[in-house]
């Protein structure tokens, strides 16, 4: 098992692990939550965006540490739950899984290319939505459709926003 881990790290040594300025993660998290809370007030159509999810995906892909990624996803999800009327844990679970998955994938793939970011964000959005639907169905007894056109549009919109948002967030990285 130790050898497997060593080999895995050796194989992934070409993938850079990014570090961010102090407080960048916290500031980005708070910023996303605040914007997510304010933007729909002014732009009702903006409710299809899930900025906390994008923040979770970005830092997961960048930090490439599953533990950090899932914990960050948990925190962001619980905060999001706290700012909504959903029970605490609904988004927490979903974003925990997303944070873990993004970090795991980021450790194996080069996610710096905009196309990759677009595709990954769309996939993660779908996964995130699937987890939420699953939780609602299983735990909350709230029947909800697995997929709707709106969800498809939302996935695309979030993926597009993610491409640009991620470029902005790249500026928070420490120069190596």
């Amino acid at each position, binding site marked *: 098992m130790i050898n497997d*881990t060593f080999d895995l790290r050796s194989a992934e040594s070409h993938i850079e692990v990014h570090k961010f300025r102090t407080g960048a993660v916290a500031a980005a998290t708070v910023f996303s939550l605040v914007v997510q809370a304010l933007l729909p007030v002014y732009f009702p159509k903006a409710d299809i965006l899930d900025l906390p999810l994008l923040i979770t995906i970005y830092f997961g892909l960048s930090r490439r540490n*599953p*533990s950090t990624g899932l*914990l960050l996803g948990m925190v962001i999800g*619980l905060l999001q739950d706290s700012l909504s009327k959903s029970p605490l844990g609904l988004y927490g679970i979903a974003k*925990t899984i997303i944070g*873990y998955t993004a970090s*795991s994938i980021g450790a194996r793939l080069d996610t710096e290319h905009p196309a990759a970011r677009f595709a990954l964000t769309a996939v993660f959005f779908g996964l995130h939505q699937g987890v939420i639907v699953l939780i609602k169905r299983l735990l909350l007894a709230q029947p909800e459709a697995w997929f709707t056109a709106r969800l498809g549009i939302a996935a695309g919109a979030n993926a597009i926003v993610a491409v640009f948002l991620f470029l902005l967030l790249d500026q928070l990285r420490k120069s190596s």
Partner: protein
Amino acid sequence: MVAIPSRHKSLVLLAGVVIVQVLFLAVQIKRDSQGRLIRSWTVEAISPFERTGAWGFGRVRSIWSHYFALQNTSRENESLRRENSALKLQVEELGSKAAEADRLALLINFRQLNHNVPMLGARVIGASADTASETIFLDRGARDGIRRNMAVITPDGVVGKVIEAFPNSAQVLLLTDKDSGVGAMLADSRVQSPVGGTGEPLLAMKYVANDDTVNLGERVVTSGMDRIFPKDLPVGTIAEIKPGNPFKLIRVRPAANLARLEEVIVLLTLRPLELHKEPEPAASDSAEKAAPEQPTTAKP
């Protein structure tokens, strides 16, 4: 502590975090018909274990109680076995003591019947160290008045004679030894003949003519002619008769159990003794009168 591989630590952490949040989520949710979801989950999740636990507990308790019952039974059985063994030993001891009491009673009775004869009871404390001789050692010796050539008997019959008297012990030559002999006669026909040892359990009656009538099972008693053993002490019974030349080959089974002697009587005199004579049939009396006296053939 089970070591979790580093690549799996995050997965374990993920599972833990998700589970905690699921539980946290369940605490908050309240269904209209089923109350709080956490309670419903808890009941549904725990009840199978409760049922299994109740079943298992019952089984375990049953097995446990049976185990203890069996253990108690086993202990009781073991205790009863020990008690049984102790009782068996006690019974054997009591039986041995009873037999000893019987033997002592016979000795006492014999002594009472022959109160005018000096005698001493002695306990057998040892046997011969070699297989070629038939001797025993007594717990009484010269200090008790025992001397060489004193007769040693039991109420059943003749045992042998003292061949060595030590201060506190005495060595007795048994009648079965090849060098032993006693003046004897057939109790019915009064035919006299020395009886000697052969080194075997049976004795040999050496000088009975082929013309003399001898019957199997006939008693052989001391004749008193050897001046060691009093007359009419039981020596044994005829066990085997074969014609010989010039004398019959007669085997005599000792009257005393010479193989298992425990207490004996030593007659404390070298003079001829007249022991108490049991009443005998008239035929025997007439035969005794008809039988001639024979010289002693007892070996020293």
